[in-house]
């Protein structure tokens, strides 16, 4: 069974306007050294898939800079490898036809049809998890399915997620909307294994009918006849659909169990762009507790319960608490940050005090000086 992958950036990034102002959702920095695309991309690579397209809508420069030619993901291949699918700007396939997943898939059909894979794995970039796509494909093959949907357990957030209902054999009966019971619900993980012939036919038909909804228009259209199954991912997963969710998912990495679940699978490492920053230095004056930190930083101040990306400087006598500082952040001496998300290359001048809250983090835009 030859398998190829297709990753959709920006499928549902409406709630992330701060973080996506300068980049596509796939390129949102996450977890001290990653970007969101690393999670689905690494999962595909770990499953032995080496033909991967990344569909984008706009603002994809940082995505291209991150993925490059695929070298760091073992995807710099003579045949296949990674391919960014930027938008066409005019005509039938122009910007206006890329509003929802049905249209996005329709837009990507030529890529899908020109790759000799019988099975496709479709992924979004807004879920942080380390799914076993090999296991998903095994279910897909065993059930001789047209489409197999990965489900995850998620804490209920602001959005009302799609909730799949399946019988005991895993066959999908219907897709409903979350009805508001309990704190955690089983939802679609937005990863699908799908038979190519089925996908192309269903997408084409749905597009011609003008369907807007992927669940109703494609997957759920003919559940009596189509073989649609679910396969559950047991493990940590977090949906990044708002700044608050981004903050919470980031802080979840401070838990040992979450790190173990995401990063400790020897056969499913999370790959990312190699930057070759030197090791992080903690100076004599440094205090650090409950901190996740990438390479290349220099810490002279005090850091607590925070995520520190690569190449960050925290000056003497400054205090950083409950915060996320992305790559290139400089916190000068004596500044105090609590509940802050600093996008890349932010400078916080000496002595400033900045305070946000977990449910309303203070966001500092990329490149700003405060």
């Amino acid at each position, binding site marked *: 069974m030859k398998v190829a992958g297709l990753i959709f950036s920006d499928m549902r990034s409406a709630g992330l306007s701060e973080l996506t102002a300068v980049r596509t959702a796939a390129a949102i920095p996450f977890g001290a050294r990653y970007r969101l695309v690393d999670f689905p991309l690494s999962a595909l690579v770990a499953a032995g898939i080496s033909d991967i397209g990344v569909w984008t809508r706009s603002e994809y420069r940082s995505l291209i800079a991150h993925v490059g030619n695929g070298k760091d993901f073992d995807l710099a291949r003579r045949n296949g490898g990674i391919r960014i699918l930027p938008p066409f700007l005019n005509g039938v396939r122009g910007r206006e036809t890329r509003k929802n997943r049905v249209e996005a898939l329709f837009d990507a059909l030529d890529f899908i049809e020109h790759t000799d894979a019988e099975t496709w794995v479709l992924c979004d970039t807004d879920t942080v998890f380390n799914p076993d796509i090999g296991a998903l494909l095994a279910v897909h093959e065993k059930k001789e399915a047209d489409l197999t949907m990965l489900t995850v357990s998620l804490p209920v957030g602001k959005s009302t997620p799609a909730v799949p209902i399946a019988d005991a054999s895993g066959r999908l009966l219907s897709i409903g909307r979350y009805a508001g019971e309990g704190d955690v619900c089983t939802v679609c993980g937005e990863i699908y294994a799908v038979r190519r012939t089925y996908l192309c036919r269903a997408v084409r038909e749905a597009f011609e009918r003008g369907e807007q909804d992927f669940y109703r228009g494609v997957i759920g259209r003919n559940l009596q006849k189509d073989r649609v199954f679910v396969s559950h991912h047991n493990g940590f997963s977090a949906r990044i659909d708002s700044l608050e969710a981004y903050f919470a998912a980031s802080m979840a990495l401070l838990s040992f169990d979450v790190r173990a679940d995401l*990063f400790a699978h020897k056969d499913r490492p999370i790959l990312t762009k190699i930057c*070759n920053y*030197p090791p992080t*230095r903690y100076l*004599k004056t440094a205090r650090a507790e*409950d901190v996740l930190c990438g*390479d290349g930083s220099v810490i002279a101040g005090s850091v607590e319960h925070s995520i520190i990306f690569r190449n960050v400087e925290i000056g003497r006598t400054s205090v950083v608490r409950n915060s996320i500082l992305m790559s290139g952040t400089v916190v000068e001496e004596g500044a105090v940050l609590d509940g802050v998300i600093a996008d890349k290359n932010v400078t916080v001048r000496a002595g400033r005090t900045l305070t946000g809250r977990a449910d309303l983090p203070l966001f500092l835009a990329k490149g700003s000086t405060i």
Partner: protein
Amino acid sequence: MSKRKECVAMLLAGGAGSRLFALTDKNAKPAVPFGGKYRIIDFALSNCVRSGIDTVGVLTQYRPQLLHEYIGAGQPWDLDRICGGVRILPPFSCRAGADWYSGTANAIYQNLDFIEQYDAEYVLILSGDHIYRMDYGKMLERHKQSGAACTIAAIRVPMREASRFGIMTLGEGGEILRFAEKPREPESDIASMGVYVFGREKLTEYLIADAAARRSAHDFGKNIIPAMLRAGEKMAAFLFDGYWRDVGTVRSLWECHMDLLGEDPALLLPRGNDRVLSRSENAAPHYIGKGAVVKNVALTDGCEIYGKVEESVLGTGVTVGAGATVRYSVLMGNNTVGADARVLFTVADAGAEIGEDAAVGDESGEITVLCEGARVEIGESFAEKGGEQ
């Protein structure tokens, strides 16, 4: 695409590094881990790339497996090139028989064909066991301007250590008057860094003559340089004033790691575009736990720190348990320090494990070495000194 290269680098990486004791039992010295996320050879390779030299022959001999795997196709250093790039050059057999590399000069002599195929005008000879950051391009420029047959990179060393090095006496114009390999009574404090630029034709001429000489050790410092001086060739020194260390002993390797620390480290690894390149292990970011202490420490990906770490360098994937203390030590990577263990003045090779409540090293000032994959059991004490301190 033309195969011609102005300058080809030849990196000597075959030495046994026996003074590094257990650290080179199974591994060539250039492949010994350094600085948390590097191997020693990364410095010379990164220097080449930064200096615009894209063709590097790496001469290997002693325990080369790991080194070969590490270099691979040269990808991490952008040395996977259509023409040139990094080439591993191990000893080989031919119709006339097979020879090990019998000395540094012999290793280059046996690979003159490699240099010739690039029609290189200049040859840069490097050794894979020094820690320094240098722009060879400047040295090459100086070599061209001076019209010398050979230019040797030189650095001032403390007089008391001078007898460990090749020592040069310079004339007023920077020309080399005399050269003595590890002299008992050094005439000066100007030491050879083991970095040479030769015109290719001159180098070929002297290597061929040396190969025919019966009593030669086939060594650059002992034979080639003295022979060129005797013949009256113009020899120039290129004084380097940056950081340079020969990490040939356990003590010097440890000291060099300590130079990475502090507010203004003697060995500052840049974070800009001139970073030292290395093959990365792709581990998760490091984590400092609640109750942990990290002061004057260099840490890299994959570390999980729950204890107290001071004045130390920790490589990829080191775990320090709660209540444990690590001080003045180098843990090269994938080490586990159990809860309440004490590690002091120790260099632990990759994978060495220290059990709970164990004690490794002491305050004697000598460095304890834990070899690759060693295990100090729970509650045990270990302070075996080894190698040249």
